[in-house]
């Protein structure tokens, strides 16, 4: 942790994420107005003392909407990634540890899925399941699964031939012990790194789905949806669109920088 804060990229990512975390946890409490409350007399206003970031087409306070929207946006990213890691990690671990025909079969299937771009894949799933925040999250998790499974599997393969695993097999340990106690603890680090970077993609995918009307539904303050709702008015008050856009970019950047730093720090070649 201390090393992470000494790493310049890591520090920048951590600072950004700390701000995002405060918004996620305390957003609704520190928001100056009710994010859903209409102020018909002050529609599409620029920044002022009363409304720091101005108001949207219904006169709702943009700052309050951004602050409350952090929670749904970030939780979407984290939730989708975690579900993807759990499913993909488990599949990769099993494929890598069992090997042979099972491995070949699973990996060929996943290769097929990998050929489809993430966005197209999520759109496909949402179209089949129907829109909404929950379905969108599930779709992103499924889209992430093949890539994460591939990373988990390749890590398992490199660990599986290490001598401490051979030593365990020579002792007569059960396959379950070998997987759970010898292999798994040594595969966590690369998966965490990959997952951290993926949270940023999940946030962007979620925002994209929200923008397309396939993710979060009004009156949610999800940032992608905010952009979609305000886009007709973006020439009358650019902040309506710019504020959620910048928020999405900063959140994604924060996770991305942190992931990069984690990758540098866990790479043994970069350490002494």
């Amino acid at each position, binding site marked *: 942790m201390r*090393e992470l804060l*000494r790493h310049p990229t890591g520090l920048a990512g951590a600072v950004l994420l700390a701000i995002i975390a405060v918004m996620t946890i305390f957003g609704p409490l520190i928001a100056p107005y009710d994010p859903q409350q209409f102020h018909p007399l002050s529609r599409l206003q620029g920044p002022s003392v009363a409304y720091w970031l101005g108001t949207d087409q219904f006169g709702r306070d943009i700052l309050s909407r951004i602050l409350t929207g952090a929670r749904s946006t970030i939780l979407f990213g984290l939730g989708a990634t975690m579900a993807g890691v759990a499913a993909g990690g488990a599949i990769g671990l099993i494929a890598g540890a069992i090997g042979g*025909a099972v491995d*070949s079969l699973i990996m060929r299937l996943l290769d097929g899925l990998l050929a489809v771009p993430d966005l197209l894949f999520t759109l496909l799933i949402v179209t089949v399941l129907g829109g909404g925040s929950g379905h969108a999250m599930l779709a992103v998790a499924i889209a992430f699964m093949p890539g994460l499974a591939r990373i988990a599997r390749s890590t398992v393969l490199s660990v599986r031939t*290490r*001598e*401490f695993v*051979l*030593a365990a*097999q*020579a*002792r*007569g*340990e059960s396959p379950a012990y070998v997987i759970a*106690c*010898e292999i798994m*603890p*040594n595969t966590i680090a690369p998966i965490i790194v990959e997952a951290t970077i993926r949270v940023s993609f999940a946030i962007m995918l979620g925002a994209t789905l929200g923008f397309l009307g396939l993710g979060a539904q009004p009156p949610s303050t999800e940032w992608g949806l905010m952009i979609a709702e305000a886009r007709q008015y973006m020439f009358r008050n650019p902040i309506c669109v710019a504020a959620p856009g910048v928020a999405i970019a900063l959140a994604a950047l924060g996770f991305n920088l942190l992931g990069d730093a984690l990758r540098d720090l866990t790479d043994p070649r970069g350490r*002494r």
Partner: protein
Amino acid sequence: MTQNTAIASARPDARPALEARAYSLAYETPGGLVQALKSIDISIPRGKTLGLVGESGSGKTSLAWAIMRYLPRNARELGGDLLLAGESLRATSKSQIADIRGARIGMVFQDPSTSLNPTLTLGEQLAETLIRHRKMSKAQAFSEGEALLARTGITRPAAMMKRYPHEASGGEKQRVVIATAFACDPECILFDEPTTALDTITSRQILDIFQTLQEDTGVAALYISHDLALVSRIAHDVAVIHRGEIVERGATATLFRNPQHDYTRALIAAAPRPDIRLSGPAPDIAAPTVLATQDLTVRYGGRSLLQKLMGRGEAAVEGARKIDIDVREGEILGIVGESGSGKSTIARAIAGIADFNGTISFDDHVVQERSAISRSYRRAAQIIFQNPDASLNPRQRVGEIIARPLKLYGLARGSGIEARVAELLAQVRLPADFAGRYPHQLSGGEKQRVAIARAFAARPKLVICDEITSSLDVSVQAAVARLLVDLQAESKASCLFITHDLNLVRQLAHRIAVVYRGDLVDLFEAADFDAQKRHPYTRALLEAMPPPIHP
């Protein structure tokens, strides 16, 4: 060696070919400045070889990099100078250095497979140096390259020029690297452990070639190695480096005969001496046989079902063929051979981690396939691997690692486990608080002790040691070997001791088996090693080995 002196004096230039004057180097790390070299003074005249001896982390490779001007960005030169024929290398500009590298200073690294480019033929790589520095045309460079290869003892140089690195053996590749180093008639060549990655017989040939070439060309050489016996054979002068400081230097014969510094003495004392036995007398002939193998054969690779159906893939390779060995109770059987000879394969089959054909009779078990090996067999036969960095799980504490066999085989329960772990740590001479540490917090020798403790925790009847000292520094090797012998004698376990180090195996083993390309070619009592009736391969191994040093 008198020829060298003649050549050196024939050239009027009396300045040493390579010199370091009070040279100091440090690395910047997050923890502060770490000094790698402290006021190094060396001087190598033309036609001479200086052996630089030190253990890993002593700074010997840092010095080579500094001379080649390949310093990493965090390196800080604190003072002194490096001189090539009297010219300061520190004062030379980057473009001048590029002209010096390869032309006036050659370098030969440890592993020829990483120092050659896999996408170019050997000929192209050799010719490149000639074209770059000696301004030859391509045709000239290729014919000169062939001549150079012929001088390094390659029998068909024209064919070798056309091959890619993966089509040549390790010895052949190292000959190409040496030919490249000599290509531009340099003033000085740096050798960084050039034979460590090669087997005994090949490295002997490489050293002979180097000596002949040096006599012909009068090049000065800095020969970096951890192997005292080897350095004593090849170097005119020796410098001993310890923690970045040269602690002793002198003419080779004098230094080894009469070492002054404590560290030099310790290094020499740690080198294996076959005339001093570490293990006790051989067990009685009547002692029961613990392990016997019959027609033990191990195959590698082979085609998968899919490849067979499609008619592709390669047939299996036999790693070991019809091996018959037996080990008596309390006996140490040494297995020697070159890398790839199949000695580790045999170990892995007996330890139950490689599929085999044939019969293994061990203790009261008779097994004919890997899946028939029971847990009680596995408890009684423990294996220790070469590299403790790989054989200890980096995410487990030392205490957990040693306790695992106790729990698995039900050898201790509850608080008994902790007590037994402490006892085992004491047996391998490690403090009890090491139980709470992770492997990366330990030195190489300490890690190997942990691996030994884990093996003996199971109270085995047979301990299989697969090159357990080869990844350790010389001074640690002897201590680990001694520890193993003590534990083995105490526990009356039998031992299969696999190694490529003939001097070491003669100190330990009661009997010695020699494997060559998967076959058991010789098996004899340790005392009969020198006998004339030995298999020709055993004799070749013995001749290729550098003679042990005797202070």
